């Protein structure tokens, strides 16, 4: 689908010899430094600090209204921060208009220019950057090749499918060889099947562009987990957590992250001891300990549904309850169990030979390694 050999033309020339003493600012692809944005007195982004290294993909993940799009728009220059600075490629761009920032941007609705052919769309940025005329056709062709749209150069956007339009939008953003690529929910307008295809495609593009920093705004945890080197979780205008997908998933820092990145059972417990011992309405359980919790504190035990097992192994971490509902979900069964101790637990199990019926008594268990004890956080205890 793509000529990989074409990629060097698209990537910014790698520095011949990276200066060993180059400070963080010069290495940084994109850096937010304590950025605060407010509209009409409402703070929509609060003290946001984040760095995206060259070649790194950082996903901004959060529910709508959490400030993730504002962060992206501030990087692009469409929103002026009240406070804080934005650096791109080591340059302070806070006061620069969007057209002087050297960014590539792809938005949800593609925003292709409907009156321009595909090749003219891709050439738009090159012309705006006053690229020598002779270079333009070659660079347009390479950008289209790279996204697998080489055969569509003469088409108009309306003659393309949604997925193809998105490829053109990406080619258009890449053609100007940006240091930073901003992707604002680029896949959310596509249907599920196309989306997973495009996700793989984006991952491949990223491998071919080892020097481009990518900021990827999404509310879809799967996109974030698949694509990102790091995930920045946002909530209520703030950055609440930022780590590699694996760490965020295995060891979320709080109940919000636990519920938002992947699904989670959040059981209200009381801390018994520093080693991760807790009690759920008197029943003793054990999870991986989290720092900052003292015996007697209220806490939340977070268990991923697919790490819950049926039956009791060695009698540890056993939870008895009554089956409230059972759903067959193709790959396996989902059990909703009302625990004797109160809360309802979701368990995603493999396909069961003899599935229990609603009303039947069952015992569930989990490995202490697979559960995390988190500080209780009031209203966020929603089940993912």
């Amino acid at each position, binding site marked *: 689908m793509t000529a990989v050999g074409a990629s060097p033309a698209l990537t910014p020339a790698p520095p011949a010899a990276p200066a060993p003493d180059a400070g963080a600012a010069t290495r940084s692809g994109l850096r937010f430094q304590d950025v605060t944005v407010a509209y009409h007195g409402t703070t929509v982004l609060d003290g946001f600090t984040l760095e995206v290294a060259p070649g790194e993909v950082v996903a901004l993940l959060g529910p709508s209204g959490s400030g993730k799009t504002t962060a992206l728009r501030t990087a692009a*220059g*469409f929103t002026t921060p009240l406070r804080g600075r934005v650096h791109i490629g080591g340059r302070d761009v806070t006061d620069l*208009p*969007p057209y002087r920032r050297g960014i590539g941007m792809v938005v949800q609705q593609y925003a292709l220019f409907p009156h321009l052919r595909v090749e003219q769309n891709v050439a738009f940025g090159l012309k705006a950057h006053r690229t020598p005329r002779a270079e333009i056709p070659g660079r347009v062709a390479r950008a289209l090749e790279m996204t697998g749209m080489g055969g569509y150069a003469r088409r108009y956007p309306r003659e393309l499918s949604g997925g193809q339009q998105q490829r053109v939008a990406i080619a258009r953003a890449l053609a100007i060889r940006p240091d930073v690529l901003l992707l604002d929910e680029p896949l959310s307008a596509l249907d599920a099947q196309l989306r997973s295809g495009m996700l793989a495609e984006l991952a491949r593009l990223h491998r071919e562009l080892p020097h481009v920093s990518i900021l990827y705004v999404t509310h879809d945890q799967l996109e974030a987990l698949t694509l990102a080197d790091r995930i920045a979780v946002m909530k209520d205008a703030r950055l609440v957590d930022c780590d590699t997908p694996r760490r965020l998933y295995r060891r979320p820092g709080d109940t919000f992250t636990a519920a938002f990145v992947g699904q989670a059972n959040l059981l209200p417990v009381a801390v018994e001891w520093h080693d991760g011992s807790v009690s759920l309405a008197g029943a003793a359980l054990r999870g991986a300990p989290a720092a900052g919790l003292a015996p007697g504190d209220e806490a939340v035990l977070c268990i991923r549904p697919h790490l819950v097992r049926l039956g009791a192994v060695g009698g540890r971490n056993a939870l008895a309850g009554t089956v409230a509902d059972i759903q067959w979900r193709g790959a396996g069964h989902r059990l909703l169990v009302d625990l004797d101790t109160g809360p309802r637990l979701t368990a995603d199990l493999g396909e069961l030979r003899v599935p229990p019926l609603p009303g039947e008594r069952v015992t569930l268990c989990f490995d202490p390694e697979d559960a995390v004890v988190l500080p209780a956080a009031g209203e966020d205890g929603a089940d993912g």
Partner: protein
Amino acid sequence: MLVHSRAARLAHWTLFLLLVVPVFALPLLMVVGASFADRWDGALPSAFTAAHYADLGRGQSLDALVTSLSTALVAGLAALTVGGWAALAARGSGRRLRHLLDGLFMLPLAVPSVVVGLALLVAFSKPPLLLNGTTTIVLLAHTVLVTSFAYQSVRAAIGRLDPALEQSAAGLGAPPAQVLRRVTLPLLLPSLTAAFGLCFALSMGELSATMMLYPPDWLPLPVRIFAATDRGALFTGAALAVALIASTLVVLAATARLRTRASYR
């Protein structure tokens, strides 16, 4: 969002004001100012009076105001009926008839009003329909001229209607007449009121066809304003013009109010 630098924005706003104020705002202000003028020797009126307005309340001026208001009322209602009916009929008919209706009902917009006046004069100056010199011919002219606007507005409003609403009404067993009365017309009410307001305003200001047709006992405001300014009574003309603007605005505001109320139903 398009112009990012504050200085450039300020420059555009300044230029905007420099264009809008002398071209649009100042002329209207001057009419109001002149309507109070008693003498105008230098750059601005040197003496003021409310006499021009006092004159409005009696005699010819009052007649003209009443004439204009009644003409606009009759023409507006007639245009709304005919134009609205035609627009509804256009929806229920085939593509070719719809195009024909569109073409014919928009035609008065293309034909100069003076020619509409001339045409009525030519057509109705001899028996069997001798209307020349009557009030009716003025009313007819106004109706013809504003019907296009009524047709256009209602037609556009029908295009914006969600067909699902009427379809569900019909699906619930309502016969067409009931769908029209209970669903379509109430939904169109805001647009109908707006269309009436527009027709009324246009009829209030109609001069061209009226100049061709008006009988001596039916002089609407615009004709009276022309007569006043033509004989040099500019300030009286200005006062009459302010009366014309004010009454038009009152009706427009009233229909806008009705419209908001109707659209909250």
